[in-house]
């Protein structure tokens, strides 16, 4: 639908309201509303995808020649911290702006928040359990924090959205969990690269799915 009517001059009653104008207005309004109310904005997901690729890629370049493994040097640390904080602030800000005035079922319910919180608590329990069992430092302080939160958090998010029958975030959750599992299998050095590339792909796929849904015509099947 290429033609978009100027609604400011549109007629005040339906008598002279052409069906073509109506179809264009219906599509335009639906697409605008979907865009403005989307809690996950495609541009933010795309920036996050590039950011995660750069940050985790830099960590991988930093550790790939290490024998034995010692972890990223302190030079990389500030970039990771800045990325995490900027990502958090941008995500919360965009979400609050998009969902202002919206209430109802799309908001997370207490039971769903509990499931997500339990997934995070489980990560700390696993790390604590491994530490007590005497597992090596590289596994506890790099491999598990890099992969297990993705697996558990991704699965929890997928389960919540499967119950809601909301298939895009379900796919994102499942994708994140698969990336985490692949990172776990890849080992402590390669996990940085697997996470970076995998999360970048998942985020770009999610952004593309949102753009497709927002631009899909309501009138033209």
């Amino acid at each position, binding site marked *: 639908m290429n033609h978009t009517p100027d*609604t400011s001059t*549109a*007629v*005040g*009653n*339906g*008598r002279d*309201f052409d*069906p*073509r*104008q*109506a*179809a264009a*207005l*219906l599509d335009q*309004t*639906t697409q*605008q*509303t*979907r865009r*403005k*109310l989307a809690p996950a904005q495609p541009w933010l997901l795309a920036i996050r995808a590039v950011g995660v690729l750069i940050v985790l890629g830099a960590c991988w370049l930093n550790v790939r020649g290490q024998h034995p493994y010692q972890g990223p040097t302190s030079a990389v640390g500030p970039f990771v911290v800045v990325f995490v904080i900027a990502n958090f602030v941008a995500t919360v800000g965009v979400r609050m702006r998009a969902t*202002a*005035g*919206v*209430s*109802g*079922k*799309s908001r997370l319910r207490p039971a769903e928040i509990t499931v997500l919180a339990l997934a995070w608590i489980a990560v700390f329990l696993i790390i604590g359990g491994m530490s007590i069992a005497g597992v090596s430092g590289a596994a506890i302080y790099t491999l598990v924090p890099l992969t297990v939160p993705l697996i558990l958090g991704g699965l929890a998010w997928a389960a919540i959205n499967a119950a809601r029958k*909301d298939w895009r975030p379900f796919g994102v959750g499942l994708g994140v969990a698969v990336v985490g599992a692949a990172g776990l299998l890849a080992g402590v050095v390669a996990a940085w690269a697997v996470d970076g590339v995998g999360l970048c792909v998942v985020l770009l796929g999610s952004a593309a799915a949102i753009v497709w849904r927002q631009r899909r015509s*309501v*009138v*033209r*099947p």
Partner: protein
Amino acid sequence: MTDELDPLIHVPTRLKIVATLAALPDGDTLSFTRLQDLLGLTPGNLIIQLRKLEEAGYLSTEKTRNGSAQKTTVALTRQGHKALDAYTQALRDLLGGL
């Protein structure tokens, strides 16, 4: 040519209201002020159009009071969703024949 189109929806302002509310996720409601902001309508005009749609059973409004502030939320009813689906199908049929 437009006889098949629901006259209650086939008015630009009301079509925008119904399309906006239909784009919300299932079970969600929108505050009056956010709806007004999205549509760029004056409060008076929006109230008149909402009243017509509510009288037809196409949408429901709920007023809640939080201290001195009153908040009005709006949502499309099942009947409103059905009416928009029928309207959209009628538009498709008309445009397919053009």
